[in-house]
């Protein structure tokens, strides 16, 4: 799945690059970074970009709203699969984690130091929200080692597994964060770094278990209690944008 994630990101980069080359060829190559890019922050030059981060990969569009404000519209999708191991009540387990998150976001940015130069020139504070049309995770847990009951080697399907599903409500979730939205690389390309947090709805947990692990569904309340504060979805995101002016 990691490979798939990388492929998706690479594809987005390729699309953006091809698009940029097409525009460049059409308008002629620009050989220098325009002074205007430095004379003022222009935190959100009208640009199209791709990003990758904790909420996935996606596309975004910047639209300036004056010299200190901007608007960012984006869409992200994150398929995330991994395997984790743990020991609970003396039993070693292996869990297959399948998480999916998809959102469409809208954020307003304010660049307080846009008139300055230096590191904080493109620094901005962001406020917005995202509609998560999908945000859920599933853990399928089974015993890591073959289970032996007395002298009986119990088949894995008889031992069973535990499927834990965590789900957040599909709704608009507010976002607050900071970032550097226009770190200029050259006359067309810039980079962005965002750090912030979505405030999610209260997660719900459901469990299903089979075989000898069937009774472990009683742990659903424990897990729900443990993750009741899992309402802050961090967003650390790196982006590359192509400016159109």
């Amino acid at each position, binding site marked *: 799945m990691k490979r798939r994630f990388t492929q998706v990101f690479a594809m987005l980069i390729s699309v953006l690059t091809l698009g940029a080359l097409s525009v460049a060829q059409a308008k002629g190559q620009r050989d220098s970074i325009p002074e205007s890019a430095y004379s003022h922050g222009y935190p959100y030059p009208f640009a199209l970009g791709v990003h990758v981060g904790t909420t996935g990969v996606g596309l975004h569009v910047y639209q300036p709203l004056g010299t200190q404000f901007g608007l960012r519209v984006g869409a992200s999708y994150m398929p995330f699969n991994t395997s984790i191991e743990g020991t609970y009540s003396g039993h070693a387990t292996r869990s297959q984690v399948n998480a999916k998150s998809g959102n469409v976001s809208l954020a307003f940015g304010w660049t307080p130091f846009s008139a300055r130069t230096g590191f904080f020139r493109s620094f901005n504070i962001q406020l917005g929200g995202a509609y998560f049309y999908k945000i859920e995770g599933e853990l399928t847990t089974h015993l890591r080692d073959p289970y032996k009951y*007395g002298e009986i080697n119990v088949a894995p399907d008889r031992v069973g597994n535990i499927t834990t599903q965590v789900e957040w409500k599909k709704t608009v979730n507010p976002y607050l964060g900071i970032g550097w939205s226009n770190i200029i690389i050259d006359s067309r390309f810039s980079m962005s770094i965002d*750090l912030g947090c979505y405030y999610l709805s209260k997660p719900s947990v459901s469990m299903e278990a089979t075989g000898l692990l069937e009774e472990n569904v009683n742990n659903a309340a424990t897990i729900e209690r443990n993750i009741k504060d899992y309402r802050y979805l961090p967003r650390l995101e790196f982006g590359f944008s192509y400016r159109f002016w």
Partner: protein
Amino acid sequence: MKKKLAIYTLAVALLGSIASCHSPLEDFNLQISTEVIEHYVTLRVVDAEGNNVSGVSATLVSGDTEDIYNMSGYKDFKLTDNLLTLGVDPKRTPTANDPIRFRVQFAASGYNTQVVPVAITDASAGIQTVVLTKPTEVPDGAEEVEENVDLNTDGSTTAATTIELPSATGEGNMNLTIPAGTQFKDASGAVVTGTSVQIVVTSVDADNEDAIVLLPGGDLRSDEVVMADGNTAAGTFSAAAVADIKMLVNGVSVKQFSQPLVVSMPIPANYVSPVTGQAVATGSTFQIYSNSGDGVWRFEQNSTVTGSAASGFRVSFPISHLTFYMAGEFATACSSARIVNFSGDWMSTGSTYPIVVQAVWGGKVIATGQYSIDENNKSISIMNVPTSGVSIVVRNSAGNILEQGALAACGQTTTMQLPNPGDASGTTSTLQLYVRCPDKTTTITLLPTFQLFYRVSGTAEFKYLGTVDNGFLRTSLLKTDGTEYDFKAIWSDRVKVVNKHTVSEDNTATVGIQPGDIIGEKAGATNLAILTEECSKL
């Protein structure tokens, strides 16, 4: 500067919020059920008086034993109290059409060794009782005589001898005639010599349930009978007369003779064939089967009935080996187990009741089993009963008939609706047991299935209350008027007895060491050790 401070504060707050979260799996209590074995049979071993027998050893002697384990998953077969529960490796799923069959041998010092056939399907096999008898005791329904006959130096009888004893069934005596010059041989065929031969002849009334335990397997049913055509089948005997003949020469068991002896056994005049429905008459034919102690009945010959109703009927036949001989009829069984499904409105209340199920053929009880029935366990299996003509009688724990009806044909399921086996007018009490492991704060709901027995305190015999499933049992067999009961719980290799305990409608208790939990006063340390050990298995 103030702006930057605000920004840093925001960033730290965001990270701090994330870091403050608990691990999702904190306090996750991973439990693995110990109910690994789903299909099992329980054998209850008692003496002729129904008392426990000490020092009983159990051995799986033949059959499909590879996947049979004790309930802890080991091939270590010991009785717990008087119960032996044998389970099937979960990799195999026995069914009515494909039961797992094997034989178990029980031996105890001072008792006759008994080998019983056992079958496990996916329906409840219940609790089957195995009775160990003492060689020195002759139960009701049996007659026995012991005689010593002088031998020549070559081990032959000095003169023709007839051993007589009152027959346990029919009119007249049973006779064993030994011609002069008969030599006695051991299992290898070698002649055994001595000054005398000790002969013990037992006549058994196969209609008498006290005497029937003397038969090989303690049952008229058999899982292996070599029939007249040489084929082997399981089935049930209708025995008209049975004899057990044992001989010892100089301490060596006799198995064969140099020439045939003659056995003559009375046949009861009221014998009616369950196969043909015909009453016995002069000229009727009975099949003679023998059993040499290997658990296999073998057809020997046919024997024609002589005599009359007035003088008494009898069959006579020659024998060349020992030890059991039966004159009767044999009805083959279905190859599959017979399944009986019970239903009843009372099941929906979550109640569990013990019932006794009898299979009756030709007016005789040929199989008896005790079963715990509830909503989740309402199918039972019966093996080795004839293909037709069998009826089922269901009794409650008080012995009252709840329902009776014909057993469905081979391959078909018999359905029976049962009225409440308990005291319908009595108060229903609920027993709910929870367990809190010593290192935990929460209770666990994953408890092993165990068998629960009860008696009114001060009485002798424990009665079966039923199977406690996951710590739960609901019954109206217990009075809630302050009557004190002794309870005996048996699971795996453990027995726990709680004496003088009254019950109420709601009897919820938690075994543990937290305030309010019960751990027992008389054997608290032992109970805690058991609790700790069992919790470690979860």
